[in-house]
C-alpha cells in the first residue's frame, strides 16, 4: 500500500479534501448509519413483544434505544458533510447495505446469536475508525463501542445459556450459529477489495477486510468452542471471500 494519509480532518475541512476522500467518507458514514438502524428493524416488531421475560423485553428496548442513538450520532456527522441519511430510518430491510440486515429476526435464539456474532462484527467495524483521519468520527467512538460491548455480552450470555441446556436447545442454537456465522464473516467484505485499500490510504480504516475478518475469527471461534458448539466451516454459505 502507498503512504497512508495521516492528517486529522474536521467537518469544516472536508469540502477542501479530494473528491475521493469525500466520497469514501460519505459512503462509510451512510453504511454505518444503515447498520445502526438496521438492527432494530430486524427485531423490534418481532421480538420485543414476545421476549421470554419482562426483563428481557426491557433489555431489547434498551438495546434498540442505544442503536437508534448510534444511528442519530452517525447521521449527524453525515449531515455535517452534506450526506442526508434520513431515508435510512425507514428503508425496507431488503434494501439494507449489508446482507445480515436484510431479513427478520423471529426467534429469541436468533436475537441472542445476533448479539453474540453480528454486534461483535459491528464492534470491529467501529474499531476500524480508532485513530482515523476524520476526527469527528473518532470522537464518538468510546460511548458507542462501550454500548456495543453490552449488546455483545448479553448475546454471548444468552447463547451460552441455550448451549448449556443441551439436547434440542443446544441443537437449535448450533443451527442458529450455523446460519449467522457466514453472514458475520461476509460483513467484512471482499478480501481483495480495492475500495478497502482506498479507505486505508485515506486513513478512514485501519485493517484490510481479510485482516479484520481473521482477527474476528480468532476471537469468536474459541468462544463458540467453549460453549461446546462447533465452529461452522468458514467457506460454506459465503457471499464474499
Amino acid at each position, binding site marked *: 500500500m502507498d503512504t497512508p494519509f495521516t492528517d486529522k480532518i474536521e467537518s469544516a475541512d472536508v469540502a477542501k479534501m479530494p473528491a475521493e476522500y469525500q466520497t469514501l467518507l460519505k459512503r462509510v458514514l451512510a453504511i454505518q448509519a444503515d447498520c445502526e438502524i438496521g438492527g432494530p428493524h430486524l427485531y*423490534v416488531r418481532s421480538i420485543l413483544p414476545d421476549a421470554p421475560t419482562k426483563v428481557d423485553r426491557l433489555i431489547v*428496548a434498551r438495546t434498540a*434505544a442505544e442503536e437508534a442513538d448510534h444511528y442519530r450520532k452517525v447521521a449527524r456527522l453525515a449531515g455535517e458533510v452534506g450526506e442526508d441519511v*434520513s431515508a435510512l430510518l*425507514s428503508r425496507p430491510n431488503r434494501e439494507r447495505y449489508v446482507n445480515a440486515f436484510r431479513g427478520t429476526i423471529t426467534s429469541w435464539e436468533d436475537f441472542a446469536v445476533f448479539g453474540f456474532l453480528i454486534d461483535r462484527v459491528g464492534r470491529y467495524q467501529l474499531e476500524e475508525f480508532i485513530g482515523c483521519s476524520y476526527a469527528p468520527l473518532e470522537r464518538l467512538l468510546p460511548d458507542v463501542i462501550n454500548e456495543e460491548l453490552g449488546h455483545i455480552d448479553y448475546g454471548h450470555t444468552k447463547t451460552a445459556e441455550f448451549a448449556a441446556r443441551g439436547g434440542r436447545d443446544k441443537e437449535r442454537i448450533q443451527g442458529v450459529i450455523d446460519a449467522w456465522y457466514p453472514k458475520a464473516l461476509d460483513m467484512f467484505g471482499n478480501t481483495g477489495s480495492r475500495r478497502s485499500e482506498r479507505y486505508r490510504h485515506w486513513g478512514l480504516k485501519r485493517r484490510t477486510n481479510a485482516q479484520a475478518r481473521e482477527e474476528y475469527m480468532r476471537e469468536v471461534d474459541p468462544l463458540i468452542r467453549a460453549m461446546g458448539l462447533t465452529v461452522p466451516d468458514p467457506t460454506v454459505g459465503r457471499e464474499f471471500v
Partner: protein
Amino acid sequence: MNARALDEHLEAMVLALHAAVNRAMPHVKDDPALVDQALRDCEEILEVILDGDVAGWLA
C-alpha cells in the same frame, strides 16, 4: 432536510425510551402495571422511530 432538527427530535425520543426502561427496570418484581405501561411506551416510541416519518416530525 434540517439535520440539526432531526438530531434533536431523535435525541428526545431516545431519551424517552431510556426513561421508560429506567423507570420500569427496578420494579419488574413489585409493580407489573408500571412495567407493562413502560413496555407499551417503549413499543410506541420505537414504532415512531422505525416508521421514520422525518418530514412529519419536522413539519
